[in-house]
């Protein structure tokens, strides 16, 4: 991958990676650090990475960096909701989005990760499996469970349907 292609990756994927990380760890500064680290790691191995696989490499690196960060400071996944909610308020989320965000935040960690990769980035089961180091069947089960939970969560609220 050339420097030009690397910079193209920055343009195309930096927002997506940042969004994915921020939604999971809910800490803007840490999310920025993880994105920065992930791109630095990719740059150091730019010579070995094909441009076509750059996005997958980037998300895989960011995902595992995030997991390490979460393990180091477990509290941050539960606290510091302020930064996370700021986006919701600033961008005038409607009721459904707020409810859905609440539901997503209540999902088990792994289900939240896979369903975000699925819905935000449109990854296939196989790609999600490569990123999260799960097999394809596990990914499918987690997504189905998450989808059922979300459906039941929003179904309980009269305002949605």
């Amino acid at each position, binding site marked *: 991958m050339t420097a030009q292609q690397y910079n193209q990756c920055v343009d195309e994927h930096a927002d997506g990676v940042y969004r994915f990380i921020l939604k999971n760890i809910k800490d803007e500064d840490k999310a920025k650090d993880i*994105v920065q680290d992930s791109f630095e790691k990719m740059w150091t191995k730019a010579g070995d990475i094909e441009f076509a696989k750059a996005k997958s490499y980037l998300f895989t690196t960011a995902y595992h960096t995030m997991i390490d960060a979460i393990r180091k400071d477990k509290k941050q996944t539960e606290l510091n909701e302020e930064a996370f909610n700021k986006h919701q308020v600033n961008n005038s989320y409607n009721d459904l989005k707020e409810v859905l965000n609440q539901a997503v935040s209540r999902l088990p960690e792994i289900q939240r990760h896979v369903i975000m990769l699925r819905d935000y980035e449109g990854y296939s089961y196989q790609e999600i499996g490569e990123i999260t180091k799960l097999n394809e069947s596990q990914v499918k089960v987690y997504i189905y469970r998450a989808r059922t939970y979300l459906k039941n969560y929003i179904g309980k609220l009269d305002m949605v349907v």
Partner: protein
Amino acid sequence: MKITRENYEAYFLDYHEGNLTEGQKAELMEFLAQNPSLKEEFEAFEMVVLEEEITPLPFDGDFLKKPVSDTDPASISEKKLIAYHEGDLGTEEKKQVLKAVAESPEARKAFTLYSLSKLEADTSIVFPAKATLKKHVIVARALMIRRLAVAAALLTFMVSLYFLLPGSLHLQQVAEEQMPAATPDPKEETFSGVPVEKMPVLAETLPDIQPQIASPLAIEPSPREIIRPPARMDVSQLALMKPSERTELMVQKQRPQTINLREDFYWFTYAGNIDITDEEEDELPQPQRMEEQRYTSLASLAYSGIERSTGVDFKNMENPFTDRNFGLWDIAGMGLAGISHITGTSLTVDTETDETGRITSFGIGERFKISR
């Protein structure tokens, strides 16, 4: 078979299991009337009959049931609805789901909820410092690197000439003549045993001689510039030359009368039967001519600079090592070798030549090498 006291038990059992005919039942009742002592035993057979025990399941067993048909709207599974939204179904299965959704209110509600459970990326969240992630790389071509290397070598060579050749010595001599000696500091250390009060002081006088530095051609060459190298010097002798001490170099800079270092440099530089005569110095170009001169390449600028500074026309000088004129590589190599020799560093300069003596590879130390 007639019922007797030997076989009555089999008849009792068959009676309670309902295996006797009406005739056999009547015969058994007659037997019991004739043998009332067996009536209690007859009733005991009746008590061993077990009633059916019903044990309820601890959970609702309906979920174990399989849908009779996917086309049945009421039996469409949640899994199918999820699979529809995940894009895991084929065309036929999609049609079945849509049909079920159309016909069943329950399926329609579940279908709608699954549709709403799809997450959407919040595009308002963007990475705020994208520019800091980008990399800017200057891709240098081989030719560019070569030119830069030559320029760097020439620069070091020119700097070394400036400090070592008679021009700089003469500047100091001029400074000595024009400026009064500064008051010596008794605390100051001496170099090589020379008292400080006898050493020239340049620091305070430099501003006054700036015009002369800016225009070296205006400076008359000192007689001390004419340092003649030995008539012939074997290449193997170069290896025997020892680098000068740094402190000694400083002293020599301060004291123009010490010219040993310059001699060494001349030896190393020319290393052959090359004369530097007064006539050559007299042929230095006039300042007016220099101002009008235009340089078409880095090489011509370097040659001109060397010629102006030293009075030596490398361009038209035969290189004793290669039997041809000095090239830029030769000058660069000598410049670096000179620096290495003067400072005592282990910097080595290696060249490889082809059959015609043309340099094909140029290396500095072990890390830098350029090949044609």
